[in-house]
């Protein structure tokens, strides 16, 4: 459905996108996951024909983003990261306006937006500017869906939205997938990765990895441990000083660590660490082996890619 080949884009000296290539299958939820400044919005703007890439090609449903931008604009939906509906228009007026610019009526594709619209209905006379973050995003989603697009691009739809509304939004995207709409969603929340069929982890203008969330987790090579004690701050410092430490960082109410010697047997290394920490007077100590999350994978891939990037520089 979407085919991107060697897209690159520079803003002055900043390389916003460096040689990006990927494909999105029809009917899948494709997640682009990365922090602010990774280049997600630039990529979305190129795909939605809002800006031109410096290099490379991209096709949506066989249409070229450069030449066939009229066709593309008639057939896709785009929900920008910033709330971009009219704040001084009511919920109903916004919806009606967007229906009319897409030359359709609210009733035509009502089944698509029914679930969201029912939640919005009590506020339909309210100005969009006075809605809560979650409600705003729901309205924006309605407006982007009103013409039943082939592909829907959602740039950070859950940013600034409370957890309850976030879950509701993702449930809605799942329903849209069932309707046959291809979805490309960007997010900076690593924990939303599991909601996508496939994800691309993005950092500093390039993709670190593209795969299903499960495969990315499976490819995490090291053993990962969650460590906690009653003094988390001291624990972090002590862990960092542990000689065999490979990586160590805070992760919610535990610290995630991986150790250098992968060959060492499970019990030995845990035992050694436990003894080390007990000697440093840590109470309520807990060390358990865990499966990596997408966020762990992201950090590992990012660290590896920055190492790879640094290497050639040292030799040149």
């Amino acid at each position: 459905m979407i085919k991107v080949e060697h897209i690159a884009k520079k803003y002055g000296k900043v390389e916003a996108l460096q040689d990006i290539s990927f494909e999105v299958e029809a009917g899948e939820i494709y997640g682009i996951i990365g922090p602010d400044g990774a280049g997600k919005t630039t990529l979305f703007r190129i795909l939605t024909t809002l800006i031109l890439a410096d290099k490379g090609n991209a096709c949506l449903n066989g249409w070229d983003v450069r030449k066939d931008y009229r066709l593309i604009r008639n057939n896709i939906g785009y929900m920008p990261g910033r709330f971009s509906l009219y704040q001084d228009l009511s919920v109903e007026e916004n919806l009606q306006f967007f229906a009319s610019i897409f030359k359709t009526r609210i009733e035509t594709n009502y089944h698509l937006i029914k679930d969201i619209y029912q939640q919005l209905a009590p506020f339909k006379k309210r100005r969009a500017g006075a809605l809560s973050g979650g409600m705003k995003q729901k309205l924006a989603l309605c407006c982007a869906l009103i013409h039943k697009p082939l592909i829907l691009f959602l740039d950070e739809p859950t940013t600034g939205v409370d957890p309850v509304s976030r879950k509701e939004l993702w449930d809605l995207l799942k329903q849209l997938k069932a309707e046959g709409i291809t979805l490309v969603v960007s997010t900076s929340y690593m924990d939303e990765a599991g909601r996508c069929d496939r994800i691309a982890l993005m950092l500093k203008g390039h993709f670190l990895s593209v795969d299903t969330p499960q495969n990315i987790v499976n490819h995490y090579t090291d053993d990962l441990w969650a460590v906690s004690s009653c003094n988390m701050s001291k624990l972090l410092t002590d862990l960092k000083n542990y000689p065999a430490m490979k990586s160590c960082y805070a992760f919610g109410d535990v610290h995630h660590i991986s150790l250098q010697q992968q060959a060492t047997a499970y019990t030995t290394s845990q035992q050694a660490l436990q003894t080390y920490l007990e000697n440093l007077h840590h109470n309520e100590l807990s060390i358990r082996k865990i499966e990596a999350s997408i966020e762990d994978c992201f950090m590992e891939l990012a660290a590896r890619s920055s190492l790879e990037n640094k290497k050639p520089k040292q030799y040149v």
Partner: protein
Amino acid sequence: MYTNRFSTFLSFVRKECYHIFRDRWTTIILLIMPVLMIILFGFAISTEVKNAHIVVLDPSQDAATHAIVNKLATSEYFTIDRYVYDLKEIDALFKKDKIGMCIVFSERFYENMMHSGDAHIQLIADGSDPNYAYTLTQYATALISTYQQENLFQNIKLPYQIQTDIKMLYNPTLKGAYNTVPGVLGMVLMLICAMMTSISIAREKEMGNMEILLVSPLKPITIILSKTVPYIILSFINFATILLLSVFALKVPIAGSLGLIILISCIFIFVSLALGLLISTLVNTQMVAMLISGVVLMFPVILLSGMIFPVESMGVFFQWLAKILPANWYIAAIRKVMIQGLGITSVVKEIIVLLSMAVVLIAVSIKKFKVRIE
């Protein structure tokens, strides 16, 4: 399909009207502003002069000087404050800020006027307020020249000439409002069309709405048209308000053809809209749009259109600058038609200039309107 496109257009226009009328301050400013401007320029900042105190230095004391002084004294513009006998006194009087102008006759004035042609009148005014000084000397010159003309009929030809301002001929009562109405028209139309259009498009960009509009089947031309239509309507409302106010409140009659005035105004509205569009293609925020349309469009119009300061007394550069401002051509044309009552043949030049400005600007701004957001 065609009706469908039209309904898209209509709903866009409706949306635009919501923007205007939901913001109470915008509405008030847009509808009340012309009224305020007329009041401000028509009454408050009037360049009209009433009972300015003048002093007379008249070494001749003959029939001619008495007649001229009498003419000035009986006009509503001047009051003779006193007679002085030495130029040195004048300085002190000016410094005390008591008088507006001093009229100095040369010696043996009448005799010289009739025989040698060497009769001089010197008008001394306080240059620290150039505008006021200019007006006073203009009025005095006009009155002296009236005296000269009256004499012309009784007498044989007079050997000396006094320059008269051409404006006085068509504004015999020297009413400030005659100058004001065309100026306010030009300013308000410029403000509504250029400033408001550029701000409203910049707003779409600033709020991120433009992204969605571009990624929709809408054609740029539809966006442009539907953004401008509400302001065209508003301009006509304001246009009518100003004309009604000027006729009924300021008592400035429409001397020429109303149809011609409307035609010229339409052309000017297009020029202003195109300017507004052009500005909006160059900027991304409302603030910059406002500053540019304010600084680049409004100030020069106020300063260089001759509404407040006479262009004649400005440097060559500014006179040239005044010539490239669309508003000046418009104001000049309206002055001719509305105040002087001239027909289409006298404003052909202005119409052609305005039309070509409109064509060029609209072409450039449509070409510059980006289908992308870079």
